């Protein structure tokens, strides 16, 4: 009797993922390997977006928080352009970034529409990371994933259909942006804000590698912001950057001004502003030098 019941019990629980409550490390590892194998079949049918060729991002206006139409009804952005989003806190900058990230089809609270080369992207381009046109650097300064740096990056490369070996390159690049080096054996959750941000930037540049890059407030990152922006803008990308930082705002060719959730106007960076940018860059370099002197425990002369 007892034997039969065990057999029935085993048969009925066979379909569950976990066969035993307590697993040894070896068992867990072999489970992971079988997962890898099943995910590889995903990678086989991936297609990638064109690295070059025409790419035009269109933002069609929607409504602000009060339901009034955006004063800016349409903006076209082409490859190679850095475009800023500015405005006071709560003015809808992050919402606009979110609209672009998810290729809003009039189905977000703003009612905006985002088009690529004049038409709405397909479902795969909206949701499948392997076909995704957008890489995003959000305001998050920390990782929550309980994984090791190297393991996490290899997994991310796999999710994007890329070579897991790129993980090393990401860490190498991240270490050029931050003072404190990152080690692949570090737990993600112990990284400092600056290390996390540097890793996120390098991850976008190397693994995500999408033709549209969205950046939300890079200035608070505790990393070399200008280098990070140059790295992300790369060759022929569209970069949309939310910023309050005068230097970053003026690195953009145009900037969208937000108020009460709406797009109120678009300002083109003037020749005068370009001249002022040079001054800001000089001042910033001077401040960076002073900061580094103090960080190294030396006396400012």
């Amino acid at each position, binding site marked *: 009797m007892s034997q039969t019941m065990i057999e029935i019990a*085993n048969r009925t629980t066979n379909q569950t993922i976990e066969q035993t409550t307590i697993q040894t490390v070896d068992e867990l590892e072999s489970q992971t390997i079988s997962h890898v194998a099943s995910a590889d079949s*995903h990678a086989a049918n991936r297609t990638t977006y064109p690295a070059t060729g025409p790419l035009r991002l269109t933002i069609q206006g929607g409504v602000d928080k009060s339901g009034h139409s955006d004063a800016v009804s349409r903006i076209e952005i082409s490859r190679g352009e850095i475009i800023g989003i500015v405005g006071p806190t709560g003015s809808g900058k992050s919402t606009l970034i979110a609209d672009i990230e998810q290729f809003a089809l009039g189905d977000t609270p703003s009612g905006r529409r985002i088009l690529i080369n004049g038409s709405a992207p397909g479902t795969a381009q909206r949701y499948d990371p392997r076909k995704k046109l957008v890489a995003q650097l*959000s305001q998050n300064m920390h990782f*929550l994933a309980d994984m090791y740096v190297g393991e996490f990056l290899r997994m*991310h490369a796999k*999710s994007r259909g890329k070579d897991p070996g790129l993980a090393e390159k990401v860490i190498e690049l991240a270490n050029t942006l931050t003072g404190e080096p990152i080690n692949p054996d570090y737990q993600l959750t112990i990284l400092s804000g600056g290390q996390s941000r540097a890793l996120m930037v390098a991850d976008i540049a190397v693994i995500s590698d999408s033709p549209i890059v969205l950046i939300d407030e890079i200035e608070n990152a505790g990393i070399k912001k200008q280098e990070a922006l140059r790295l992300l803008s790369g060759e022929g990308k569209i970069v949309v950057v939310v910023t309050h930082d005068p230097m970053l705002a003026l690195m953009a060719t145009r900037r969208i001004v937000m108020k009460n959730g709406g797009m109120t106007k678009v300002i083109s960076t003037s020749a005068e502003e370009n001249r002022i940018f040079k001054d800001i860059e000089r001042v910033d370099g001077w401040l960076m030098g002073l900061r580094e002197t103090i960080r190294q425990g030396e006396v400012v002369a």
Partner: protein
Amino acid sequence: MKMVVVAGTPGSGKTSVLMHAVKDLIREGAKPALVKIDCMWTEDDVRFKRLGLPVAVGLSKDMCPDHYAIYNVDEMLAWAAAQGANILLNETAGLCLRCAPYPDKALAICVIDVTTGPNSPLKVGPLLTTADAAVMTKGDLVSQAEREVFRERILEANPGCRIIEANGLTGKGSAELAELMMSWPDIAGEMMLRHNPPLAICTLCTGELRVSKEHHRGMLRHLDGFMEYTGE
């Protein structure tokens, strides 16, 4: 009548995501009715009723809430039909990861919180592995890389499933979810569960409160994984 079962762990955002989807369903002309299953107490029905759809509450009390939901499917469907609804939404209590209260012809949705970390899709079990769609919530709290790794982990646990990234605060993803609900076939004929519920035939089920092994009989599983029947 279409049937949608929304499951997921407590706090994963089932109610918030569903509230946005209900608004979209009503806007698109569907007639949803909702049954919220909980164990001891819920106030979610008050939130849902504000959206202007028929809402009923089922409290499972001494019965396992998932068993309770499964046992009462006919009654829920009859109630929804009497309300003139064409989509029955069933939000489960979301407690145990072992049960998957999904009838085969219903649309099975597992709501899963991204901030629980990339190992959680592997822990959730049949709730996720037998779902038609996984709704990822709280993605705004992590980096894009983390969202993508999480997504990969969901696909490892359930390779065929549709993944919807949703935000219970902003309503992101709800239009896609509502569209999926509306496109799902009507239920017809006899329905079967997608996955067997756990064995629950032991002295603990009948109210034994004493803790040690010597007091228990039935189908029992030891810490080392050995499963046996003890008793007469």
